[in-house]
């Protein structure tokens, strides 16, 4: 099947408006006869479910957590971008569009990104109207901060809990519709297959995670807002339950999977402390507004620090290498995430890492504390030369801005970041790749949609900070509700979709077969044993730097591990009860397939772009080398085994932005 991105005609600034003016609508009386399934209740799924219900559709929403409020969007820290230009610093829809395309290393679809930038400002209006308590200035207006890869302040925030506040906003909009009976909420339910009838997505099979019951649910359209697949690495900043299963089942039913190798490895996470580690914790990018990243210049200092005979605060300014400020003077500590992560890896590979494992760099707030302290002392008319006072005042300002992050750090590491620099290292955080969608956010399966992190379209090969929240809410509140109506306008006479058909029988039988296999396998090792091994292969061979040889061996190793898993995994308990190991086993089985496709995609893409860095393709200065012949989206079609997946290309055209070398120097 040829890929048709369905981008509307006309100048880029008019496309979305023209599109909305010409699509088919469904009248309110008919919406009452149409059912929509939304899987996932994060920012994308939650906002979509609420808006579709409000428009009049009957929505069934599903999440595996015990409450929709616990979806992993809740953990987003730093902020949400919007081209409001409240700061008057030159922001505009075009500039947000430009920054996002450039930040994505010219691997995203122009029309989708422009639409995202266009609706961004409205998200803030919407959220404020819903009672989201964004940070404000003393005059009562909204405050902004800066994020990486841009030269304006366009990020709205609620301390270090922006995702929480936005998700609670979407959750409250859902609650209103649940209360009215327009959303039927299924918590602790996991989607295990998509059901297609006459080629269209018409339902899903789920497992009730409390009773183990396998259920059939039908609808006229199915929306996946099921997040990313970073947990294929085992260790990531994702929640323990975050998984690829819904997206992968959709892929197996005909949805192409795009750019699986585009993974964001976030530069500022708390380093790994030992083999027992179950997940990694992010320290928000917003910290790079005020934190300076460095390692010692001299190897003897590095050694002394590792032996604990020297403290970082004892190293003189001139003996510190602020390597981001040195290499990228224009953007300094606020270079995009892919650039910052690779630079940290470069220093640590060269031997300058500052913890026992040699995999950590410093993020230091001392200068910011002094700067803020002096500012406060000036405002209050106090003595600027009293160092202790200045430090105290400065620490208060920093506490107001990042208090919860500092507390998280202290609890995990047992060190006080107000008085000693934080230690950080890159970790897997977000996946730009995902299910291929057209301009309507529809996958290659008619009636099956993918929104938020689950799709691929807006962030190219690297996502800018504070843009994930923007995209999730844009898709759910403002884009999907229009585009899905155009599709559903053909379903006003269809009537309810029955579930006692052979298509549902077959899908359910397959789900039961898989579960029976896992539960009766009686192998020797737990699910985590396999998941950890998969994670090690992914991190060592498909991580921050990749090469053909490693990727080839990763493909073989993952495929062997998958065979071993199916032969030797041990799942305790039964299928008809609360059984977390069984749920995990199903998720890891899918990661073991996705992982191989990931490596295959990374091997096929013989260039470096954004989060995908191939050692063979770099400039003499060690920067990513993009290649014109790879200016396309890789969309993979499922053909049985990951190794047999067939590549389809969507060529990317840039008519409104000049493609050039991506420089932050």
């Amino acid at each position, binding site marked *: 099947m040829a890929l048709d991105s369905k981008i509307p005609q006309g100048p880029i600034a008019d496309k979305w408006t023209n599109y909305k003016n010409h699509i088919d609508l469904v009248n309110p009386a008919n919406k009452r006869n149409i059912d929509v399934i939304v899987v996932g209740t994060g920012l994308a799924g939650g906002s979509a479910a609420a808006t579709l219900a409000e428009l009049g559709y009957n929505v069934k929403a599903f999440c595996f957590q015990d409450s929709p409020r616990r979806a992993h969007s809740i953990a987003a820290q730093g902020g949400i971008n919007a081209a409001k230009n409240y700061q008057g610093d030159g922001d505009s829809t075009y500039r947000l569009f430009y920054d996002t395309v450039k930040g994505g290393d010219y691997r995203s679809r122009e029309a989708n990104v422009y639409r995202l930038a266009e609706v961004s400002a409205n*998200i803030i209006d919407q959220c404020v109207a819903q009672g989201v308590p964004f940070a404000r200035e003393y005059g009562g207006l909204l405050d902004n901060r800066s994020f990486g890869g841009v030269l304006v302040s366009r990020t709205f925030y609620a301390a270090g809990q922006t*995702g929480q506040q936005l998700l609670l906003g979407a959750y409250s909009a859902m609650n209103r519709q649940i209360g009215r009976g327009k959303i039927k909420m299924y918590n602790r339910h996991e989607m295990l297959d998509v059901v297609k009838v006459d080629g269209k997505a018409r339902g899903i099979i789920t497992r009730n995670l409390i009773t183990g019951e396998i259920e059939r649910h039908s609808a006229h359209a199915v929306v996946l807002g099921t997040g990313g697949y970073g947990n294929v690495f085992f260790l990531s900043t994702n929640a323990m339950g975050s998984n690829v299963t819904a997206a992968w089942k959709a892929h197996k039913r005909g949805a192409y999977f795009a750019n699986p190798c585009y993974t964001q490895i976030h530069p500022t996470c708390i380093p790994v402390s030992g083999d*027992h580690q179950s997940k990694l914790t992010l320290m928000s990018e917003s910290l790079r507004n005020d934190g300076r990243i460095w390692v010692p210049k001299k190897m003897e200092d590095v050694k002394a620090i590792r032996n604990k005979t020297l403290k970082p605060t004892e190293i003189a300014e001139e003996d510190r290498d602020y390597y981001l400020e040195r290499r990228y003077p224009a953007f300094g500590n606020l270079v995009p995430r892919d650039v910052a992560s690779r630079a940290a890896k470069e220093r640590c590979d060269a031997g300058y890492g500052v913890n026992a494992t040699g995999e950590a760099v410093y993020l230091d707030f001392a200068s910011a504390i002094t700067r803020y302290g002096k500012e406060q002392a000036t405002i209050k008319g106090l003595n600027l030369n009293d160092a202790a006072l200045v430090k105290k005042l400065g620490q208060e300002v920093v506490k107001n801005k990042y208090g919860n992050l500092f507390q998280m750090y202290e609890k995990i590491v047992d060190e006080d970041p107000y008085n000693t620099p934080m230690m950080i290292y890159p970790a897997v955080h977000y996946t730009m790749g995902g299910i291929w969608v057209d301009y309507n956010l529809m996958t290659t399966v008619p009636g099956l949609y993918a929104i938020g992190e689950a799709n691929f379209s807006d962030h190219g090969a690297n996502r800018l900070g504070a843009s994930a929240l923007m995209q999730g809410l844009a898709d759910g509140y403002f884009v999907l509700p229009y585009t899905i109506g155009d599709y559903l306008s053909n379903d006003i006479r269809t009537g309810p979709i029955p579930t006692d058909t052979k298509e549902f029988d077959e899908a359910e039988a397959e789900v039961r077969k898989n579960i029976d296999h896992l539960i009766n396998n009686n192998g020797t090792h737990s699910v985590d044993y396999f998941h950890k091994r998969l994670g090690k292969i992914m991190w060592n061979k498909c991580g921050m730097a990749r090469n053909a040889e490693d990727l080839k061996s990763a493909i073989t190793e993952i495929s062997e591990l998958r065979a071993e898993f199916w032969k030797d995994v041990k799942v305790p308990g039964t299928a008809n009860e609360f059984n977390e190991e069984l749920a995990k086993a199903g998720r890891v089985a899918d990661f073991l397939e996705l992982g191989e496709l990931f490596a295959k995609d990374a091997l096929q893409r013989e260039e470096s772009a954004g989060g995908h860095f191939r050692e063979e393709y770099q400039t003499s200065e060690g920067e990513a080398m993009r290649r014109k012949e790879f200016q396309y989206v890789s969309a993979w079609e499922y053909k049985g085994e990951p190794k047999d997946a067939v590549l389809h290309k969507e060529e990317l055209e840039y008519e409104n932005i000049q493609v050039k070398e991506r420089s932050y120097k």
Partner: protein
Amino acid sequence: MNLTLKIWRQANANDKGKMVDYKISDVSPDMSFLEMLDVLNNELIEKGEEPVAFDHDCREGICGSCSLYINGEAHGPDRGVTTCQLHMRMFKDGDTIFIEPFRAKAFPVIKDLVVDRTAFDRIQHAGGFISVNTSGNTIDANAIPVNKENADDAFSAATCIGCGACVASCKNSSAMLFVGAKVSQFALLPQGRVEATDRVLNMVNQMDAEGFGNCTNTGACEVECPKGISLENIARMNREYLAASLKG
């Protein structure tokens, strides 16, 4: 460290349940409490026993999934953290640790340490929202300035993660801190004032219907709350409720 764990095991909602002893060795002080339970579960699975079921997800103290009543305290002995942020350095070699579910009539046990907290969701369905459409056709976000102090207080109330520690810690199993926080967030913002009367009445009604107890001002909830939600929110809810009742 080597530890003895006394853990509540209950096969399902209808089972009677009991405490069971487990030994665990080589626990690193850098492990989180849940990572220690992961190690125990892996050992149990490889021995052919049933692992201990507990709720958890983000493991960074924000999703509110994890619970656990550890040595008689919700989220354990540390302050200002959830169980997933509790580290083993808070314990000593040779310690015996009691691990139980959050107990309350309104939070029935599903399995082992997993409880059903959907009562909290139902309270929110009753009024935990502002009735605006999500069309984006509202007014500009800066059209109504909000006093910074109120905005900050609304934010502080809104940082509640809905974990239920307040209920588990309260001798009356009261949910007043949770409901008070939600009522306060909206009551403090101009956007939320419009429906303030109905909201507080409906949410309190639902809270009572779910079987949560009343508040007798003991303050255990505030002490045990991992997010430091203030008792002031309960006082504010009481004022809102009184005013709404007089109006109604």
